[in-house]
């Protein structure tokens, strides 16, 4: 093992949740122990978090209450009502049941119903009628205890 291989080995454990590594082959042996306090949290930078998928849980910042974000499953145009002349599906405070249609995302003339992921109350509507939305963009926040 030369210095570069050792360096590589250190690089390897630095990025992982590894405390100690020991390796031997023939008469060669190496053991590396990591410093305790400065163990970087799993080496993950915020950029490397897995992406939010539609309908994932979003632990909110205020008092740990877990709100649910309903994300767009398509890139397209968001509509809050079945047609321009009709009333919106929901408003802030509306009580909803899981599976209930709460909005529409249009992609290539196809209207895709957006359904509530859980029972609760609409806490926030993040997009306005006609807004373009990307895949995975949060559209609604539902308070399951609301």
């Amino acid at each position, binding site marked *: 093992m030369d210095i570069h291989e050792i360096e590589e080995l250190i*690089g390897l454990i630095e990025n992982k949740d590894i405390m100690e590594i020991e390796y031997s082959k023939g008469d060669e042996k190496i053991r590396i122990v990591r410093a305790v306090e400065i163990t970087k949290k799993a080496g993950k930078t915020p*950029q490397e978090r897995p*992406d939010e998928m539609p309908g994932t849980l979003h632990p909110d910042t205020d008092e740990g209450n877990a709100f649910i974000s309903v994300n767009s499953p*398509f890139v397209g145009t968001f509509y809050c009502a079945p047609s321009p002349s009709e009333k919106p599906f929901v408003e802030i405070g509306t009580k909803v049941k899981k599976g209930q249609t709460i909005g529409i995302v249009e992609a*290539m003339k196809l209207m895709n119903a957006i359904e509530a992921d859980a029972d609760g109350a609409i806490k926030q509507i993040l997009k306005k009628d006609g807004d*373009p*939305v*990307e895949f995975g963009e949060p559209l609604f926040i539902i308070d399951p205890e609301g």
Partner: protein
Amino acid sequence: MFTKVLVANRGEIAIRIIRALKELGIRSVAVYSTADKNALHTRIADEKVCIGSAQSKNSYLNAPALISAAQIKGVDAIHPGYGFLSEDAGFAEVCEAAGIKFIGPKPQDIELMGNKLKAREHVNKLGIQVMPGTFQEIEDEQHAIRIAKEIGLPLMVKAAEGGGGRGMKIIYDEDQIPNIIKIARAEAKTAFGNTSLYIEKYFENVRHVEIQIIGDGNGGVVSLGERECSIQRRHQKFIEESPSVAVDDKLRNKMNDAALRITKHINYRGVGTIEFLLDEKGKFYFMEMNTRLQVEHPVTEFVTGMDIVAEQINIAGGQKMSVSQKDIKLKGHAIECRINAEDPETLVPSSGIIHTYIQPGGPWVRVDGHVYCGYEVPPYYDSLIAKLIVWAEDRDSAIRRMQRSLDEFIIEGIKTNIPLHKKILASKEFLLGNISTRFIEKFI
């Protein structure tokens, strides 16, 4: 001309296209999957939009999502790059139906050349030598055995809807035929959604030489000379160069002429590549045509001085071709090494975080890459992380320039094929230009 274009691709080619758009003063829209949130192409584009989850079928192959993204961003055109939907005639049609220009050939040309059997027929009718083999699809094993007797072993079984090196099997022995046909059919169905197979003669000591053409759709087609692409691994190109040591002026004229006849006959619009096999006696055979921009286009850019991507966009935007055949002169020599994130021994793709990334630079060195220090190579996509292209006055100098550039290229955190490139470049056979499509196989 266009005012805003969506680039329906990722990686180095998305960046290449965004660069060309910026230089032409056209706004660029990058699309990305959730796995590509930190990808460089999203950072250098003017706008970006997330189109789906990590798996290609949900994002970069998701035609409705791409069209929808194009619509919410209000673009005039879509550039498909290579791979993904670039040779999907249906996608080209959907674009045009949605009023969005597809920066590529006419859908019927994609379709004609995309079906390798139809393409063979088209070229054969023009009196150009195609690979010995069938012009119909294989009916059954018995049919395949009859063909084998007719044209002689070894043979190659290919998927009619395949191409680009995928879906190919070699038959050395008549006994293997039933088995190979079965496997090839299954693979073709999975990969291309079509079980059609055909058979060609398999040549062992040949070169893969291709001609880059560009057409304006009004009968004007120009050839930008050849690329030598014989250095391949598992039918995937590994090192490309232009010109080819095996092609002299006379042969180049013949190959250019064949390529121009094939494309002028269909009034071809856009960039494309006619792929030939070239045997030791200087005889060449049509293999297939790729109706898109190719990975290795930079070697041609270096020797011709022409910006192929800018020209492609300009033509799609309705401009006239900026050059005529007499303007095209190959100057010096260019070589490209494809740098892949893969284990150089096993070829297994290597994903992970790049913790050191130092690029080569200096005179006549070009890097078309998409990774950077701290970037995590996702496991979902092609392993190509950079193309290293050099130019020099002559082939020997280009090889030395490539060698020092490979020496300078420091990538740590993932495995790459740089060590194999160094080995090939240092070999006497490569230096002498004694190469064939089986070079790496024999070399390793």
